[in-house]
């Protein structure tokens, strides 16, 4: 990896313009990770890099205007987080970095993970594969699991595929999944009420910017309703979720900043392979387990956990 000092040497007078596009409002945990990554590469906001934030809360369509602006203005790089990527597919003039749960090949953003071939590259979390894994882990912790409530933001790209994979896995394990979709933050409360009324044995929440932002609310809801919960990212467990399994988000966005650095130095996104996380973290929140009265010692989950919150 290039040393951070080289970033300054590149062109000290130039201020790079980076568009940050998201369908969620601040606070944006992913943006923090990206900013941290940029700082580590030697970029200082306001000095040699300018981040312009564009949020279209729950409405990816609104970002299309931003995309138009993006094509006209002198923007060096666009970074789209989650669903916002959908609005960007038509942009071909500016390098676009994405962070997706789904498969970018399936979405038509890149030709292949190894050689994207266009102006898009970034990171995929392989949520699709992990969807089944999460159901399996829940089943291991609660062998008596029969009914699983699945909370999902329908606006999330690839959400349908994720639901299908989850459904398939659940059925294979003899679990009845209860699909509770919602679109946007204002539907979240209604969705949670639905989950509370469903009398499910456990709750599975799809990882997504929206649920991420409202993770505490969801985690508290799960505890209040004595629902063992499973999430996609460790941040959910920190907020009180029982279990999470997935790639480290912050690390991914941090790492995305290195791609931003390389693109700003002139490398073509076409030659930068889409990055896939190598390590998947299993996080267990023992405090939540205690609150729920669950004895996790019986299962193999504790020795498999990468981190246990006590």
């Amino acid at each position, binding site marked *: 990896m290039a040393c951070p000092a080289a970033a300054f040497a590149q062109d000290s007078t130039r201020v790079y313009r980076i568009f940050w596009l998201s369908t969620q409002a601040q606070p944006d945990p992913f943006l923090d990770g990206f900013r941290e990554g940029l700082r580590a590469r030697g970029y200082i906001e306001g000095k040699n890099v300018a981040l312009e934030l564009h949020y279209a809360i729950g409405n990816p369509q609104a970002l299309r205007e931003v995309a138009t602006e993006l094509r006209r203005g002198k923007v060096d790089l666009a970074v789209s987080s989650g669903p916002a990527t959908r609005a960007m597919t038509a942009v071909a003039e500016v390098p676009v970095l994405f962070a997706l749960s789904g498969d970018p090949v399936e979405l038509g953003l890149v030709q292949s993970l*190894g050689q994207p071939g266009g102006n898009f590259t970034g990171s995929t979390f392989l949520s699709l594969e992990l969807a089944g894994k999460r159901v399996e882990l829940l089943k291991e912790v609660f062998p008596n699991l029969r009914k699983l409530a699945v909370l999902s933001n329908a606006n999330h790209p690839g959400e349908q595929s994720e639901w299908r994979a989850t459904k398939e896995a659940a059925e294979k394990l003899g679990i009845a999944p209860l699909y509770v979709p919602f679109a946007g933050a204002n539907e979240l409360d209604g969705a949670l009420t639905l989950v509370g009324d469903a009398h499910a044995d456990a709750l599975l929440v799809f990882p997504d910017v929206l649920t991420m932002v409202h993770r505490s609310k969801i985690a508290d809801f799960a505890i209040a309703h004595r629902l063992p919960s499973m999430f996609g990212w460790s941040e959910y467990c920190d907020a009180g979720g029982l279990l999470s399994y997935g790639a480290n988000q912050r690390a991914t966005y941090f790492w995305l900043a290195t791609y931003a650095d390389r693109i700003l130095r002139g490398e073509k996104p076409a030659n*930068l392979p*889409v990055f896939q996380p190598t390590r998947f973290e299993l996080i267990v929140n023992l405090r939540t387990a205690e609150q729920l009265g669950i004895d996790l010692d019986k299962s193999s989950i504790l020795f*498999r956990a990468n981190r246990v919150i006590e």
Partner: protein
Amino acid sequence: MTRPRRSLFLKYFVTLFVAVVAPLVLGSATEAWFAFRDNRIDLDERLQVEARSAADRIQAFTDGIRDQLGWVVQFPWNEGEDDRHRIDGLRLLQQVPAIVSLSLIDPNGTERVFVSRVSMNRTGRGADMSEDPAVVGARANRVWYGPVHYQRDSEPYMRIAVAGNRAAAGIVVADINLKLIWDIIAAIKIGDTGHALVVDDSGRLIAHPDISLVLRSGAGSADFNRLKSVVSADEGSAVSTTGEDGKPVVALSVRAANVGWTVIAEQPVQEAFESIRAALWRSLMLIAIGIIFASGLAYWRACRMWGPIRQLEDGVERIGMGQLDHRITIQSRDELEQLAIRFNQMAEELAASQHKSERINRLKQFLAPQVAELVEHSDQRLLDGQRREVVAIFGDLRGFTAFTARAQPDAILAVLRQYYEAVGAVTSRHEATLIRFDGDGVMVLVNAPVTCEDPAHRGIRLAIDMQAAVQSLASTWSADGCALGFGVGIAMGPATVGTLGYHGRLDYTAIGNVVNLASRLCGLADDGQILVDPVVTEHVNDSIALTSIGERPIKGYDHDLEVFAVVRMYAPIRHLGHPFHPAHVRPVAAARVRTTLELAATDAG
């Protein structure tokens, strides 16, 4: 004559230059060569160490996985123990991050347990894998390393299969994500920008510090294959070639034997030979400075040598052309300065000697040679103007005008030559001063410039000898039919003597009445007669027989003067065709002399 003007300068310059530059160049070249060799050996060692270390760590990585896998195939398969095996598998996943999934296969080749980080686990009898190359390979060799493949066209994976000690223990087949080797390779830094990379046998990239190159699912493997074959060809020593990014690198390869991969350690040529380039640069600078210094020194030295030599040469040339006052200034404080001093001394002496010889030559015109030498070697001031007592003697041929009218020029010159010779010889003998010849006349001075004892005596003897010599000549001339006589006048008195003249024409002359008087007496004298003035007479009375011929009027004198004549020891040859009347018949040739003498006498008076 050709003048090889610059050859000495060139010789000196080239010799001095070469003397300084040659050892310098030789020394620098030797140093550079040794530095290059040491650098090369050092580079070889460095790359070897790094490549070997990378290979060892990669081997340790795969060996570690192999050993860990061996741990799950220690116990034989028993019915109902699938769950225990599953736990083993899960624990192994926990233990080894690189393992993405693993299958536990019973002795029959049936998959019994499958655990994965990504996919869903399976327990119980699964697919028949007895024909799987991993199972076949592990059965044959206990350990089997599969080929590298790229999952989802991106990430490098390989399968490792390990069989238990006993066939009953079954086989474990693990999927390994080779991206994790990145940690090993990224940690290897060779110099500042050098790195290590790993390729498999077909040149596909397995590990590289820039992970994005690896994730391109083997794209660019042609480049890496070329690099591998070039570098592997020269096992154990570094090869200069083009790196994967098209820049020149120095690379060395080491094989990781168990998996059959090649670890290549490379460093950009730019950096690898940085120190040797710096050393070469230093050497070149040194040589350049040396050359400038040497040429300056050589030029200066050659000039110091050549300049004085040119000056000397020039000086010799000038001296040769008679410029005796030329002097050379050399201040080199060495033999050359010494030589210049000697040269100047030589020029000085040469000038003095020439000056002297010029003076002697001039003196010899009117002095007897020995007198001239004496004058020259004694007091130079002898020739300075002064008043002193001198004896003036005048001689004059009689009948010369008539002779010249008749005779052939050859004959005239022959007569004059004999006459001058005779008079000259007599003058020399008596160490008197021959002032001049003037046609048939002659003037001789005694006691000037060289003083002598008893000048009157010497003068009268000279006059007598001169008369005798000319008379003896006259007798031979008369035999040839030329009737010529000779008369002499001698007087003594004070006169002003000294050199007179203009530029190179210098004459020694006496001015005064005495000269006038002697001339008049000469005019009065008959052939064979020597007329003497009273002063001389007074001095020589006692030894020379003189007779008075009575008082005679002398031009320029207020009163008549008594004139004496030397008593003849021989009779004059009376052979002239006409009576000789000196008072009335004056030789034409003597006219000019007389005029000057008259003027001189007037001046003196």
